[in-house]
């Protein structure tokens, strides 16, 4: 018996970052008090008309760029007609016939193999409002009504859950870095529906749609579970029905919501309240001007300046730190040391105080002088650890801080040599242990050196000199 081959396509909705909503001047912000970011346009009051927020079209153009799509130069909006209480006008303004972007791709890598996930189209549309059900009543929060969304539809070219997860991770990284969306699945600013079918031959099987899966991890799980479910049905001579399912993460299974009856009839037609938009070269260039470096561009840049791949990934995963580090590249310093510092002491400080780096007093100039001091041995790593709160919280220069904390690191080699000679004389047993190959003895001796110098000596330098003296 031959194996079933799964075919998977994903539909991802992301909320676009913008000051105001897609078709009205209400604020587009998450987490405001219920029904406070609402006006008569969002509520679909009689006689109100949509206006188009140009900034969102710009975001759409940026999305086309980062997802390698062709930009549609002359486009319109369409009405998708359906009745639902969360749909204020009982039609949603979307792009059916002229999506802003077509024929794009996202490149992923799974188990060392690269693959392009094709994107058939991306289009701009308005979000619905949010409904909550309390016993016999339903409540509606219109804050979300009219929030701009981009829907990104892949070709049916994904083969398994792993690929789907890799695609979503990459998509999220791209849209997040391009400042198009926060892509927070837990807040609903990124939502994913998965279409899954299986077949043994060229003909595609009947597909099911699993809606609104709550995390990237769960998308992977839901797809694998759905493939397994469909295989079982078909192996038992059952038939797969076209249906909408949801993923229950407690049960770890997809669950039937509704069977699709005859194909949905949304009675699409061109939105007559919004004239055609013609996208000029100038508008495109202008929109792309503010596009920041994207993750793959950063990876290339960082590896050229000598960062390890671990450091690079850590930086990219920490957007504020990454953006700060990008600024540091304008200065001449040791970037590897800088990244080490940023990812260790600075990060622990930020985590501990729940701050972002831009909220601290760590100016680039100050950071560069810390690195200079570390390089010269005038500051030890331990000193930095001790000083970190002051470094981050006040405007004193390093020299001023050193004075305040009475840090006078010994850089005089003769002095260190004297100490080392003294330690070697007083610890003959350990010296012998070392010479007999016990490495631990070196640590002990080093500890003695640090103790004698009260930690004011550059440990690396001292360690090098100690080894030299012992090996004489």
């Amino acid at each position, binding site marked *: 018996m031959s194996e079933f081959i799964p075919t998977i396509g994903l539909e991802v909705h992301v909320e676009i970052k913008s000051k105001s909503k897609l078709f009205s001047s209400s604020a587009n912000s998450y987490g405001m008090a219920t029904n406070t970011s609402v006006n*008569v346009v969002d509520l679909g009051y009689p006689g109100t008309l949509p206006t188009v927020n140009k900034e969102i079209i710009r975001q759409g153009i940026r999305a086309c760029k980062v997802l390698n799509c062709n930009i549609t130069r002359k486009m319109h909006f369409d009405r998708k007609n359906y009745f639902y209480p969360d749909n204020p006008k009982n039609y949603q303004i979307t792009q059916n016939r002229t999506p802003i972007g077509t024929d794009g791709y996202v490149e992923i890598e799974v188990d060392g193999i690269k693959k392009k996930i094709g994107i058939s189209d991306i289009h701009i549309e308005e979000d619905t409002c949010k409904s909550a059900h309390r016993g016999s009543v339903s409540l509606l929060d219109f804050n979300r009504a009219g929030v701009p969304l981009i829907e990104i539809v892949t070709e049916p070219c994904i083969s398994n859950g792993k690929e789907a997860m890799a695609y979503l991770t990459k998509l999220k990284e791209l849209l997040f870095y391009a400042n198009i969306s926060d892509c927070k699945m837990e807040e609903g600013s990124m939502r994913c529906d998965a279409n899954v079918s299986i077949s043994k031959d060229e003909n595609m099987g009947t597909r099911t749609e699993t809606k609104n899966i709550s995390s990237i991890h769960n998308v992977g799980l839901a797809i694998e579970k759905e493939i397994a479910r469909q295989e079982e049905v078909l192996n038992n001579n059952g038939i797969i029905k076209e249906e909408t399912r949801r993923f229950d993460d407690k049960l770890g299974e997809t669950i039937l919501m509704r069977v699709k009856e005859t194909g949905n009839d949304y009675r699409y037609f061109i939105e007559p*309240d919004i004239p055609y938009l013609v996208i000029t070269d100038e508008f495109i260039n202008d929109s792309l001007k503010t596009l920041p470096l994207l993750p793959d561009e950063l990876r290339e840049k960082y590896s050229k300046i000598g960062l390890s791949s671990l450091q690079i990934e850590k930086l990219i995963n920490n957007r504020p730190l990454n953006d700060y580090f990008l600024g540091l590249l304008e200065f001449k310093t040791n970037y590897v040391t800088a990244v080490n510092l940023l990812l260790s002491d600075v990060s622990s400080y930020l985590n501990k105080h729940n701050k972002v780096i831009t909220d601290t007093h760590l100016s680039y100039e100050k950071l560069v002088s810390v690195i200079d001091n570390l390089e010269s041995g005038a500051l030890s790593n331990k000193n930095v650890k001790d000083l970190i709160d002051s470094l981050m919280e006040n405007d004193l220069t390093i020299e001023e801080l050193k004075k305040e904390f009475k840090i006078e690191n010994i850089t005089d080699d003769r002095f260190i040599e004297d100490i080392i000679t003294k330690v070697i004389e007083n610890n003959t047993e350990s010296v012998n242990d070392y010479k007999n190959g016990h490495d631990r003895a070196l640590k002990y001796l080093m500890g003695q050196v640090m103790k004698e110098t009260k930690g004011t000596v550059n440990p690396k330098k001292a360690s090098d000199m100690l080894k030299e003296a012992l090996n004489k």
Partner: protein
Amino acid sequence: MSKYLDLSIKEIHELLVDKKITPLDLVDEALERIEENKDLNAFITINDKVREEASALGEVEPDNIFFGIPIAVKDNIVTKDLKTTCASHILDNFIPIYDATIVEKLKENKLLIIGKANMDEFAMGSTSETSYFGTPLNPHDKKRTAGGSSGGSATAISGGLVPLALGSDTGGSIRQPASYTGIVGMKPTYGRISRYGLVAFASSLDQIGPMTRTVYENAALLNILVGEDDKDLTSVKKEKEDFTRLIGKDIKGMKIALPKYFVSDIVDEEISKRIKEVISFLKENGATVDIVDMKYLDTAVNLYQIIAMAEASSNLARFDGIRYGYRATSFNNVDSMYEKTRGEGFGDEVKRRIMVGSYILSGENAKTYYDKALMVRDDITKEFNRIFKDYDLIIGPTTTRVAPLLGTSKDDPHKAFMDDVLVIPVNMAGLPGLSVPVGKSSENLPIGLHIIGKAFDEATIYRLASFIEEVF
């Protein structure tokens, strides 16, 4: 009883400037006339604050001839704090919290909204008989229709209740009632006047326009209604102009076209005869009038039925009882709430059009009917443009017959559209069109001449209309 309202706007204005009368005198006179002519059913709602507003007007602005003049506003134009029903049960409790853009303009110019004029329910009809609030009557013969859908506005002007009114015209709804009641009604170029706050019937056709006793007053009122509006993307930016500027000029050298279709056998003989008299008069005064062939004019009613119904089915979806308006009292679930609310809230004609429109947009029908209709619509526009290469204006009768008796068109929905057969092509092409009275029939009923102009060339229409008005 005072007779100030029978004076011209200019004369009333002089009295106001000379402090011989106050706006309150005008309002009281209008209210008195409305009360005395209650049987005309011209109004759905009287503005119960209008006397207060009149008293609060302050100093007359000598350069604004509309200061303190009472005006009737069709009840599909939203007015803040003043009930706006669209002549429908479904909105019979709807008090808007916002003004239509043109209502703001009326208020800026210190006009006084005396009340909301009766109309066909959601402007759907040709006789105003679909109103939930009774039928407005034709002051020339109360057994006859005042036309529709702006029947209440026409009745109010023709009956001398107020000197000014606003109507809306989707398929002749200003010009046809103007013709039936012997007043001047202008449907300006699509995009001239903001539609923000006009409850949408067919968005790509709807246009607000002035209805008045004289051509001059019509042009002067248009002066203050026009202008691009940020809230309506279909409104058009144009240089400010004075639409009265060509009034009083002769018509020597004017080139006028008369399409054969407009004097074919669909038009009553008596009306054709009057049109011929008008033509001789125009020729005597130095204009050339040529009979021309124009294609597609006879398709306009069918196109209207497709385009207007399709758009209406979507535009009226928002009336669902959730956020405003009428909501049925007993229902088991959301679907039955929709069904009952809309079933009880809408009248028969509205329901018929929603059903037809939904059918037209369903599945393949969208291509067969709607898309095709849009193509033919383009052809009509091209056909008009072809004529306008050689001619300044196109004329014809506004209607095929004089105002019919009430109750005669209700049983045959299709026949009712035939009242608008001559005016609908203008909406399809988005052009300006005006009806001006050219005397009366043997039954002493008004006959209207229809003047169609180039896009945004309302001024030339007024020039011819005023010249004719002097004589007929």
